[in-house]
């Protein structure tokens, strides 16, 4: 026998199920009067610094059908590349920008939509700068553990080319699955859960 490390095991994940909206976006689920507004609806206050953008997209299953019962959360740095988090040690983030957003996919169209600002660059562990990116976390009925991915920006070709995370993707044909298309007023980022166009998901 040896000593024990005295570690606990992380609580196992379970699917968020089809009624995730009841708990996380009750106003969207038409359960009014409990919370004044759904959390994560507004990311940027009027005085938030930076370029305002809208990120839209769909999440597709293995048949190409959009998920109409998924929930997406995003987490990103402010315009100067600082996170609005107590664990941010490089300075204070823009107080008018939360950095965190939550959006259910539309029950009819399946679209998600975030009104946010374009993030600045943040460093990788070795000090190299990562390209501007937004971290995504996706849950839904049929997804047993939240899927983590990143969205990069299609108009940041130079920064994307030197991004240390994108550089880790062995199958280069999969890199474009993480890069959003610049469209009128913002960016379009479609996520494919499986199949030929499958998005790169992270164990991070």
């Amino acid at each position, binding site marked *: 026998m040896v000593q024990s490390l005295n*570690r*606990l*095991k*992380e*609580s*196992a*994940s*379970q*699917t*968020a*199920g089809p*009624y*995730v909206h*009841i*708990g*996380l976006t*009750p106003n969207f*689920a038409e*359960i009014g009067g*409990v*919370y*004044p507004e759904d*959390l994560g609806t507004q990311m940027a206050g009027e005085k938030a610094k930076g370029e305002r953008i809208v990120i839209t997209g769909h999440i597709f*299953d293995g048949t190409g059908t959009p998920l109409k019962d998924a929930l997406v959360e995003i987490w990103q740095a402010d315009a100067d590349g600082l*996170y*609005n*988090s*107590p*664990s*941010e*040690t*490089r300075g204070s983030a823009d*107080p008018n920008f*939360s*950095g*965190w957003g939550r959006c259910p996919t539309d029950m009819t169209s399946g679209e998600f939509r975030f009104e946010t600002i374009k993030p600045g660059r943040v*460093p*990788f*562990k070795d*000090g190299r700068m*990562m390209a501007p990116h937004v*971290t995504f*976390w996706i*849950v839904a*009925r*049929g*997804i*047993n*553990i*939240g899927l*983590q991915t*990143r969205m990069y920006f299609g108009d940041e070709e130079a920064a994307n080319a030197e991004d240390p*995370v994108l550089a880790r993707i062995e199958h280069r044909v999969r890199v474009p699955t993480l890069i959003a298309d610049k469209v009128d007023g913002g960016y379009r980022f479609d996520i494919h*859960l*499986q199949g030929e166009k*499958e998005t*790169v*998901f992270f*164990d*991070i």
Partner: protein
Amino acid sequence: MSENRLSNRKPETGAFFQRDREWHPQGYTPWYKTSVLRSPQKALLSLDNTISEITGPVFGHNILGELDHDLIHNFAKPGESAIGPRIIVYGRVLDERGKGVPGALLEFWQANAGGRYRHKKEGYIAPLDPNFGGCGRTITDEDGGYAFRTIQPGPYPWPNGPNDWRPAHIHFSVFGHGFAQRLITQMYFEGDPLIPLCPIVKTINDPVAISDLTAVLDMGATKPMDSRAYKFDIVLRGRRSTLFENRMEGN
């Protein structure tokens, strides 16, 4: 959001322990049918945490309303309350090192006593309870402790197998201090014979991991002549020591 920085303790900035993905459910679990077309087929790309995952949103108590942790009353008409077995659910949010996680936002949702959810996509014949909404939230205290009051949800039939029933359960969504700790899970109730039959429970391989999601009846914490109590602790990823690690730029 960040105006409520907790206590004077220094925020931790280490990377999180790797997730044990054999302990968690796999993505592809065909007996839970919806997972078949919603699970990635390619391997996940492993990366050590960067500052994008080590950081995460922290929520202040200013978001909480007075009844947010009382599902018996937060949707009820004045003077009325939800129907069903009244319970208190309490416990702690810990990390894998056993440390309490203060300031963690917990959100929970559930069906009513008859197994009916208040959601327009739901058509189960059991009626809605006009005094029950089914959502609540709270933020853990300095030791990671939390408590809320609700009614015990009923089991619920679902179109998976021809006669599948979910055990009574409460869904939990948990934020720690880093976005990499983000977790959604379900709490089950001690002694429920539906637990071992459930295809969603069975997405988890290890019976110990299932026990860890099963709340225990605590007669010592009941409120006599009012509510029974169930204890449910939640464990989030722990943080690695940074003793021999290169510090991040500017850290």
